[in-house]
């Protein structure tokens, strides 16, 4: 139980993929303009991250390691991610066509979200059990969701705020992201 808590805290807060390891910044900036689409994107990415962590673990332990093909990790994990994203796309298109419209191009772009590949590769480098690897993937997704939703809520407020002209638009968003990153670095000594 304690291990579960440690894995979750470390992947959500301490090693947050977006703000501490700087992976997956593209959707972080791209889909954070509206809270609603940010929530949809978070759910989709968390789903993809968890599923990818599971599938890539199986692929790694069942295929790549027995055949001594560890050098093929990157390409096979990308294949796993592409398949999982494609599956998620079909699933969302069927269950929530509106979310599908709102997410638009960012849904297939989860494929190129380096946080997803990062989780798969880091999991492969560590001696984890299957349950811990999936939990790690879910934690990474929860951390991504946390910062994306916080950030989009702030950007919605920033859109209505009285910002000095040189800082309007992307500039203030970058500054905000930087300050959030500083704040998350502060979790560093937690565990």
């Amino acid at each position: 139980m304690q291990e579960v808590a440690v894995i979750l805290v470390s992947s959500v807060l301490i090693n947050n993929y977006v703000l501490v390891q700087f992976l997956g910044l593209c959707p972080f900036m791209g889909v954070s303009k509206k809270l609603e689409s940010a929530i949809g994107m978070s759910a989709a990415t968390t789903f993809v991250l968890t599923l990818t962590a599971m599938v890539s673990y199986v692929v790694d332990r069942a295929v790549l390691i027995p055949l001594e093909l560890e050098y093929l990790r990157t390409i096979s994990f990308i294949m796993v991610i592409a398949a999982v994203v494609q599956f998620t796309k079909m699933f969302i298109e069927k269950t929530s066509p509106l979310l599908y419209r709102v997410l638009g191009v960012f849904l297939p772009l989860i494929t190129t979200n380096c946080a997803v590949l990062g989780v798969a590769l880091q999991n492969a480098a560590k001696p984890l059990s299957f349950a811990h690897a999936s939990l790690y993937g879910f934690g990474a997704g929860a951390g991504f969701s946390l910062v994306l939703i916080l950030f989009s809520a702030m950007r919605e407020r920033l859109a209505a705020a009285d910002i000095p002209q040189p800082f309007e638009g992307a500039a203030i968003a970058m500054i905000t992201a930087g300050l959030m990153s500083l704040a998350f670095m502060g979790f560093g000594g937690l565990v």
Partner: protein
Amino acid sequence: MLDFIIQQPIIAALVALAGLGIIFGALLGFAAEKFKIEGDPVIEQIDELLPQTQCGQCGFPGCRPYAESIANGDEINKCPPGGQSTINAIANLLDVPAPELDQEHGQEAEVKSVAYIREAECIGCTKCIQACPVDAILGAAKLMHTVIVDECTGCDLCVEPCPVDCIDMLPVEAGIKEWQWPAPPLPNGLIASDKTHNDSNHEDAA
């Protein structure tokens, strides 16, 4: 067999990647079949928001064809019977800014109205029956016609074809069921001081 594959690293790599590719391909093919989409579900949702008058004032033969056209990127402000509230609802659904009603397609009716046939003057020509998009006019050739009030959408299309001009559009009396509280006045800002604060800033910039 396995030993042979492991001893030949290139063959092992090829077999592993091809095998993974085939497995994922098969899974995706299965998922594509399972999550197959029939038609575009967004069309249904737009169609539900449209007033279903089937009046054709948008230039399409009915509400559903217009909904299909909107889903394919047409303007959403071509529906006078729905008026601004329908435009706002569709804009909200599709997550786009809400435009004003396009006056080219007609004006939003101030109050809801229904057609009324002055039955004494009706000559039974059936022309209004053919014009009615929702089949709300009852009658037969050379017999008096009348309007089923509950079915009439108030689209005006029967007024024009009537040769003796015996059709009137009567406003529907607002009864106790239709009455609503008046909407609260629109706020100028989040709080009263917001407005003066912003105004003074614009003056500074100027």
